[in-house]
């Protein structure tokens, strides 16, 4: 009988099977090992199958917490993992993953990929995730002692591959394909992603913050990397001026498209009019949702005054409930060398380092300290576009300089009562 009766049922059905991938790895490696190829983790793919079969039977994981494992000089990028079935399945006793920083936009040459595969054949399980949900290439499963040689091999590739983030550090930034292939891109997502990654290599490789921090770059509000939901600092392309309209192309679409029902009526603010000949957009009323542009890519384009919106705080639900990033800067120009964005991030981190609690994401910190303080930190003015609606309670704070001189304040002063007055970074002046 099969060693894996439960897993054997997985390949049923038309969708590609991960079990088949593991089994294929196991089978090829068995053969290669037999052929004498240098493979440091022989049988680990098969071991993984065995352990997974046990999980399917027991309906629980058999992985234990990882200890601290890393490569020399780096604090993150490796997730330690040990099996609780080490006696039974020693092949997967250690089964750490390495997060490899992917190229922005997940574009590859076959040459680069083959180098990685070859190295992982030698030093690891031969199993990968393309990609992890932060965006890294995930190399799934190796022993502690092979981490360093694997990394050293990565250094020597052409081009070399570096390690991604994990732990309380900057996580590997990611970007949609943007200008490489998409006509909607309002800024160069790949370049910004690359530049942020390079500028903050230290932050990426050496965990030293209260918790993790994620950048994601999407070229337009369609948000094809789900940055709004999954990054502390989402940079979403947008525009301020008029949507560009090619009326001729609109008329082309009109030949087969129901513009009235599918474009005009679905505009969330009713900003579009179509008289059968001309499409007009009330740009004062347009909220840059992309729908009309998505519908007629040949005819409509985002405006020319392009930039991005910064949304802050997106994250998973622990502990205060999930957060969709909210608007911190409604519009910012995105221009090489991206100094403004970089400085904004640095100021934010400095503050977070200062006043953040252990395992407190920046979004939660801002909730705790208030948007006002946050705005001072990033050096930005308030804008009504940061809110869905103004506050519903009158529990406002006022700062000293906002109050009128009065006897009452003098008496408070005499009593030694301090009035709130928040200025960030003023010491520097």
């Amino acid at each position: 009988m099969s060693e894996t009766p439960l897993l054997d049922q997985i390949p049923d059905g038309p969708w590609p099977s991960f079990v088949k991938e593991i089994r294929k790895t196991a089978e090829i490696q068995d053969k290669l090992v037999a052929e004498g190829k240098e493979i440091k983790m022989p049988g680990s793919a098969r071991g993984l199958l065995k352990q997974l079969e046990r999980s399917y039977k027991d309906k629980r994981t058999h992985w234990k917490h990882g200890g601290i494992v890393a490569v020399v000089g780096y604090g993150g990028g490796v997730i330690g993992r040990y099996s609780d079935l080490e006696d039974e399945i020693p092949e997967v006793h250690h089964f750490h993953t390495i997060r490899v920083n992917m190229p922005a936009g997940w574009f590859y040459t076959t040459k680069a990929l083959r180098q990685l595969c070859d190295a992982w054949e030698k030093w690891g399980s031969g199993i990968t995730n393309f990609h992890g949900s932060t965006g890294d290439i995930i190399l799934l499963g190796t022993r502690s002692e092979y981490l360093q040689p694997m990394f050293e091999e990565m250094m020597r590739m052409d081009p070399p591959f570096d390690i991604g983030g994990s732990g309380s550090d900057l996580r590997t930034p990611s970007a949609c394909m943007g200008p490489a292939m998409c006509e909607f891109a309002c800024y160069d997502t790949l370049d910004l992603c690359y530049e942020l990654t390079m500028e903050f290599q230290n932050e990426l490789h050496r965990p030293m913050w209260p918790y993790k921090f994620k950048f994601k770059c999407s070229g337009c509000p369609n948000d094809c990397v789900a940055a709004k939901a999954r990054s502390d600092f989402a940079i979403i392309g947008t525009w301020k001026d008029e949507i560009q309209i090619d009326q001729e192309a609109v008329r082309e679409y009109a030949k087969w498209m129901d513009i009235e029902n599918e474009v005009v009526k679905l505009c969330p603010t009713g900003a579009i009019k179509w008289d059968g000949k001309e499409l007009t957009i009330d740009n004062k009323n347009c909220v840059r949702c992309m729908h009309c542009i998505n519908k007629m890519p040949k005819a409509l384009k985002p405006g020319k005054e392009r930039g991005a919106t910064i949304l802050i705080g997106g994250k998973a639900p622990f502990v205060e409930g999930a957060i969709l990033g909210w608007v911190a800067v409604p519009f910012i120009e995105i221009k090489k060398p991206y100094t403004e964005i970089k400085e904004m991030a640095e100021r934010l981190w400095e503050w977070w380092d200062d006043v953040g609690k252990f395992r407190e994401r920046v979004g939660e910190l801002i909730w705790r300290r208030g948007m006002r303080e946050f705005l001072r930190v990033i050096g930005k003015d308030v804008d009504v576009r940061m809110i869905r609606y103004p506050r519903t309670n009158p529990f406002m704070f006022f700062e000293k300089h906002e109050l009128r001189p009065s006897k009452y304040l003098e008496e408070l002063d005499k009593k030694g009562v301090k009035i709130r007055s928040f200025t960030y970074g003023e010491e520097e002046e």
Partner: protein
Amino acid sequence: MAEERPEWWKTDFGPPHYELMLPEVLKKNYGKWAYHEVVKCGVIKRVAESGDTIYVVRFGTPRLLSIYTIKELCDIADKYTGGYLRWTSRHNVEFILTDESKIDDLIKEVQERTGFPCGGTWDAPTGKYALSNIIHTQGWIHCHTPAIDASGIVKAVMDELYEYFVEMKLPAMCRISLACCGNMCGAVHASDISIVGIHRAPPLVDDDAVRRTCELPSTAAACPNAAIRIKAKEKTVEVDGEKCMYCGNCYTMCPGMPLFDPENDGAAILCAGKVSDARHRPELSKVVVPWVPNEPPRWPTLVSYVKKIFLAWAENARKHERMAEFVERIGWERFFDLAGIEFTEHLIDDFRIVPFMYDSYRVGTQFRW
């Protein structure tokens, strides 16, 4: 231990039964009204299934009434309605006529004797709405915590918007409310426009009074922001002015913690709340002007802000579109433009209860420019 009580002594007998207060025509047609029509501003014709018809004539009042005015209203009711009258839930007084021909005389007589204007009705069928009276509170007339007066501001605002009370020329219902402190004794947290008194400086602890009149633990516990520290040895408390949000909760518990600063007390202005479910679900009001100073007796700054907000809506809203619906359509960015008021940092919620305020943050990138 019951004392000896006179035979007329009663307890827990409750309010008069409402039936005792209803004119015959209401009793007869109770629950059997067929429809109503607004005949003209202030006059509602109500027709019963039986065919009986009444005319309800509505007048604005200042709410604060002299018993002598009430008696005058009674005189008029005796003369025109057989001795019945009622008040509405917004401080207006109504006379229930059965004889259509008496409407104008009634109106004339009420106005001559009391000065109360006829109006405040609205008519959904034709989509014409008058402004009603302002729900409000005590202010300097009676309360111990107000940051503003109530009646005086109501008077100044209603003087300015008077024409909208006596004519039905608004596109939709508009409810204005006022509360003189954050306790919000009124519907200001869910009104089209509301005015709420706010303090802006921490309490000035009167140590003597605290010792005399306050229980320290409950005073400290009253503070939502944990800004009060008990000084056990001195038997008093201390306020951390940087944490305080001037809510006055501590003062409610302890008279030794007044927080009245004539120069810095004043009002915040809110808008775009509603209560009815008509079209759009109920909504809380939102703060749009963080502070205007106290300027008795006529509060010109406050009145001008209220008017700007009111007109931004009244002149641009569609039929039946209340403030909340209007803003939903045009967006807050456009609203602040139209009203000519400034969006300030204060208007972003940062009250400690985290996700509540967050609900007001924008997620997504939909804006108008």
